[in-house]
């Protein structure tokens, strides 16, 4: 059976896996984004808190994904919970770091001007600082998403959802005729998803980056 025949005969299963993969990554990214920006906003003003947040999240990123999932299994069991927790944790670092860098990089004169025209602290944050820091944050989100695509594949080993199952099925049946097709379908599927997400982010960037700072 060649690759195209394989895709043809299994497209339902593959599409379901691809959808689950994308939705797991997407949902975890939403959580990671909200959490990451929140951590950034809370910590960026103080030197040590910001550094602590960056250090903590980068330590998490240093931990190999299989090992983190392995440590989560005794606590939360197999399946979706370890996948979601691991993906969210790994997604945090680029977002936290870029929000802190972005927020600290906002020209203090602009914030001062906002203060001068009587904006409250919340208004300054939402109307001046976050819009100006948004491009680096969005870059962080892109980097995170690409990373999570690959980690989600590994999470399939802990009975997580997604295209990783296809890859592990292929590894499990090494030597059989379909092994290559399965691995190839899973791998290429993830590459395609990653590129689609990336394209979506470019579009989101166009739509959401404030017109005044668009390059």
């Amino acid at each position: 059976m060649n690759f195209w025949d394989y895709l043809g005969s299994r497209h339902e299963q593959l599409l379901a896996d691809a959808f689950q993969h994308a939705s797991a990554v997407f949902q975890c990214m939403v959580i990671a984004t909200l959490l990451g920006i929140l951590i950034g906003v809370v910590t960026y003003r103080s030197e040590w808190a910001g550094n602590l947040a960056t250090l903590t999240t980068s330590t998490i990123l240093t931990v190999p994904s299989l090992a983190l999932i392995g440590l989560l299994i005794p606590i939360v069991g197999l399946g979706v919970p370890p996948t979601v927790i691991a993906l969210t944790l790994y997604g945090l670092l680029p977002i936290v770091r870029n929000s802190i860098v972005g927020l600290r990089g906002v020209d203090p004169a602009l914030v001062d001007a906002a203060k001068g025209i009587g904006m409250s602290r919340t208004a300054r944050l939402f109307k001046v600082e976050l819009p100006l820091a948004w491009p680096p944050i969005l870059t962080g989100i892109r980097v995170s998403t690409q990373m999570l695509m690959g980690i989600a594949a590994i999470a399939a080993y802990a009975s997580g959802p997604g295209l990783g199952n296809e890859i592990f099925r292929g590894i499990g049946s090494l030597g059989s005729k379909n092994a290559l097709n399965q691995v190839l379908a899973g791998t290429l599927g993830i590459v395609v998803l990653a590129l689609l997400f990336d394209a979506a982010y470019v579009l989101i960037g166009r739509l959401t980056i404030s017109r005044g700072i668009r390059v």
Partner: protein
Amino acid sequence: MTPPQEPPLSPHPTEPRRPDGEHEVKGHTFRDTGDGEPEATPVVSATREPRRLTWQKLTFLPVTLLVVLLITWLWFRNADLDSISKNALADGNVWVRLKQHIELTVISTFFVLLIAIPLGILLTRKRLRPAAPFAMALANIGQATPAIGLLALLVIWMGIGMKAALVGMVIYAVLPVLSNTIAGLKANDPTLLEAARGIGMSPMGVLGKVELPLAVPLILAGVRTALVLNVGTATLATFGGGGGLGDLISTGITTQRMPVLVLGSILTVALALLVDWLASLAEIMLRPRGLEVRS
């Protein structure tokens, strides 16, 4: 009027720095314009070289890891292991896997450096510079490939064993080091290179004595990334029969034996953090003195 003291420059490049002539008083920003008296430049005390390493940095992580490993060992001695767990850990299996893991990491990192740094240098030379964007675009698509998929494909192609795992790890980690090398060489101040050429240095001299030393911090950051990535990817080697600590983790998951799983995971985490720590020390020690930011 006594000019206010400039805040000390932070060693972190990400720190927002006020432009020249601007300073902050009680939370308000002022800017010196016109021809007032110039700000006093902070005098760098040349009496003592700033210490590169603080004792906290040297001791915190190793001590933490030791404590964690000690707790794990104590817990493990009291855990009741059934025959399956005992089998999985018999004959010094843990030690063998740990050694394999280190072997995989060291060998793959060696090859990554051997490939990525010369390639980065080549891609920033004048003649090959137009090829750099293509190489980067290709590498970016490669980055979107999941490590486990790449490894599985290589295993199917090259057969089960350490070799497939090593090739996969090298391919996977070349990109960050390559992009860091290119970024580091590109970020060099062109006027410095011009000056080096101006005093009659040969192209090799400029590269070896000016460009590379200036790019060392970024290249070292790339090396650190590669090491950390490789420790992580090495856990996946087990799926292609390549051994490593991933073996304990996958055995633990498939046989549902938590002690094996936890032991494998903790050892992997400890190894990854230790490698990252060692690389961070190397980063600090190998940075050229001239690039140090004095505070």
